[in-house]
């Protein structure tokens, strides 16, 4: 009958997604971009909403939380998964509140008086059943999906406001967002791009070939030359893996050096990051912040005996503190790093920060 089939189908899809996540992050650089992961996660959550059995908002949130925990555990460094889950949870809360007809969702933490008198929204409140809730939630998730699809284009549209002609722009590694940003600006303006190759994965090479094919004057440099050429650079534009709650970044390794060099030469550092990369994590969670891959990338097995006598590290990410960042460009416009906390409160509910 359709019920059990739907369920098994759903579980199969979830399992497939989880194994995909586990494999995708196996240390050779992201096989898929964050945008794709975000889209797939949201699509899966929509399917769960549609096909799972739940009677009230609370049930749905419980199901989504459970699946969410499994997904984040499969690949902790892929934070977009967790971000999408939190977005959907917030959507559910909002739809629930709207169905109840109350306008409380806007005032939740706004006033101390409310905190004292209402005692906060408790879990019980989500037990009411609303017939239209499912449809509303699915519609809202569809809106979220459309927003996700347009993020890269929205960011690229702002390119001409930030790049003038004959500029020298520096970037590191490979970011699809930055790539489309620069290509969009190159349609109207002429400028030079210097790409730091970002060893050991050397993603910068692919970025450089792609940019030069679009007709942009590109130069590839080794990581060691970042400070040496920085004095001739007008702007640094980078992408990132995650934007942290304090406005800092978790970006590909080498970005902190790049940010320090830019600060030394007073060169503006612009981060192109769509909203789904914003995560309520803080950088002091030491054991979840860093991710390491096989040291074979750094010191290959062909080196022989010394391998057993040395420690080799190959971290994938770097922390960049918010003081070094000048501007964030996201699909909803440009922000200073000090504004990030505000955006976070709009996107996620504080109770969802811990899944």
């Amino acid at each position, binding site marked *: 009958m359709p019920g059990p089939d739907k369920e098994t189908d759903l579980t199969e899809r979830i399992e497939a997604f989880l194994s995909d996540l586990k494999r995708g992050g196996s240390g*050779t650089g992201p096989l898929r971009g964050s945008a794709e992961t975000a889209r797939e996660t949201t699509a899966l959550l929509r399917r769960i909403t549609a096909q799972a059995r739940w009677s009230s908002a609370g049930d749905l949130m419980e199901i989504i939380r459970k699946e969410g925990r499994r997904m984040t555990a499969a690949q902790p460094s892929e934070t977009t998964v967790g971000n999408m889950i939190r977005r959907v949870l917030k959507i559910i809360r909002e739809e629930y509140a709207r169905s109840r007809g109350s306008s409380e969702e806007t005032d939740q933490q706004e006033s101390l008086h409310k905190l004292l008198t209402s005692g906060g929204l408790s879990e019980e409140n989500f037990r009411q059943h609303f017939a239209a809730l499912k449809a509303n939630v699915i519609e809202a998730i569809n809106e979220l999906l459309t927003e996700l699809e347009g993020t890269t284009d929205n960011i690229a549209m702002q390119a001409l406001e930030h790049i003038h002609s004959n500029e020298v722009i520096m970037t590191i590694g490979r970011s699809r967002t930055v790539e489309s940003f620069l290509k969009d600006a190159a349609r109207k303006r002429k400028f030079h791009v210097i790409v730091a*190759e*970002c*060893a*050991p*994965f*050397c993603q910068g*090479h*692919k970025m*450089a*070939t792609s940019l*030069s*094919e679009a*007709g*942009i*004057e*590109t*130069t*590839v*440099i*080794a*990581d*060691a*030359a*970042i*400070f*040496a*050429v920085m*004095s*001739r650079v007008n702007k640094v534009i980078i992408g990132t893996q995650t934007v942290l709650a304090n406005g800092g970044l978790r970006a590909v*390794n*080498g970005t*902190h*050096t790049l940010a*320090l*060099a830019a600060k*030394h030469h007073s060169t503006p550092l612009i981060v192109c990051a769509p909203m789904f990369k914003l995560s309520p994590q803080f950088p002091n969670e030491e054991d979840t912040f*860093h991710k390491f891959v096989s040291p074979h990338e*750094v*010191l290959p097995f062909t*080196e022989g005996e*010394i391998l057993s*006598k*040395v*420690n*080799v*590290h*190959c*971290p994938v990410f*770097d*922390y960049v503190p918010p003081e070094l960042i000048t501007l964030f460009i996201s699909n909803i416009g440009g922000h200073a790093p000090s504004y990030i906390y505000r955006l976070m409160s709009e996107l996620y509910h504080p109770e969802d920060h811990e899944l």
Partner: protein
Amino acid sequence: MSAEPSVASSSTPATQHKKTTRGGTRHFTEGGPVKKDGIQQAKTEGKELTKEEKQRLRKEKKQQKKSKEKKDEKASQESEKEKKPVSSASPASQPPTQPITPKAPSAVPTLVPVPASETPAPADKPAKSKAEMKAERRARQEAERASKQGKKGEVGQQAAPGKPKAPPSELQPVVKRLPEHVQVDNPEVLKKLAKKLERQQIPLRSDYGYKVSLFSHLHQYSRKAPLTQQLSIPSTVIHPAIVRLGLQYSQGIVAGSNARSVALLHAFKQVIRDYTTPPNEELSRDLVNKLKPYISFLNQCRPLSASMGNAIKYIKKEISNIPSQCKEEEAKSKLLNCIDRYIDEKINLAAKAIAKSSIEKISDGDVILVYGCSSLVNHILCEAFEKNRKFRVIVVDSRPRLEGREALRRLVQRGISCTYVLISAVSYILPEVSKVFLGAHALLANGYVMSRVGTSQIALVAKAFNVPVLVCCETYKFCERVQTDSFVSNELDDPDDLIVTRKGKTQLEHWQEVPSLGLLNLVYDVTPPDFVDLVITDLGMIPCTSVPVVLRVKNVDQ
């Protein structure tokens, strides 16, 4: 400044009279305060010189003129023309033999009364360092001297008041001619170089690949096309030891400042051993001339480093100081001893002295970060380990040279516990580090440290984490050049080195075919002195800003 002697020598004898009679009506196009003083002196003392003194001074000026080669022609041409409006009253007894070449920069030094104190200074220095160019210029000078006979008088007059000045070499800087290898974008310079190499029968190495526009003034060679391919074997012009050395340099087999200098000196020892003075020639002059094409050849293989430049200067000085009555065998053995002593003192003993000072800076429990492969830093760490200091080392490496692996092997062999990371992970590993030891290729006169590319980055990040940075450098690598960025004078390595194959795919394989894609492989960069906390040299531990003091002390010694 260096054009002043030519100015002085090109004054007319007629104006001499004018000076004695009217002291004040002199017009200058531009002038600094120093020049005005000389003028005052000339004005006051011009009347007192007798004919004999003028003759004597004329002769001295002649001598000085011989040793100054560079700006003779052009500057003197201009100065002649400038003299004319000044000495308008005197009929120009010497008709202008050369037309004016309108060159604005040389207008400054072509003032009429040049303070003689400045003239001896440039004369001396060029004599020492440009000795090798004498032969080329002699022919031209004979012709010029005839036309300038009369003008020596005025020069002599200037020389008199200016004589009793302090050792000029200390106070008057010499602007050296810009080396060829940073003027690749100037076609005249390239033509001159091509002619010179043709004369010396050395093949010209051609540039390879698309050069990034910021670096179009530098050479970029490919390792796959070594210069020796164009030489005949056996080469009749270049000594085989030098050919081998050149090949070792261009292929990167001998790399590293100290290694290159020592290899160079050993090759020169071989050359000296095999040298025989041709008849009717003096060893001191001929050997220096023999070495010139070798140096051009080595320069073509790979631009000379600062330490090599200093070593070559030393050898040339030693050779030209050989007295002419010295027998050949004696002279040769003397030179060989000199070279041995130089290597011993400047490199080996210096390393020992530096190691001794550095060991005081290493305490138990230290975590020391080193970058790339510096022979000196490796030596220091091995010595410290012998003295039973307990520390561990983090070796930072960078593409495309990956020299750190060599350092890693050497340290691990001694039993030092090491960690190895790439330079992009340096901000991850730096919180663990207590000290950073860096080697240097050269120390510039404005306190900047010139070293392997990436050194300045490490110093920057270390500064951000408040980790002390110590640079170890022997004094023979100190250099009088000044530089503020890594663009104007650098070396471009083979751009194909950046290409890497990962998982069977080579992204940049066809980079030459894409017109807007360039690869940049820098070799050196400069670290500003505010990133460096201490420089450890064989003369002691000094701050970065004391480099010109050390240079001055060394010059006075010599």
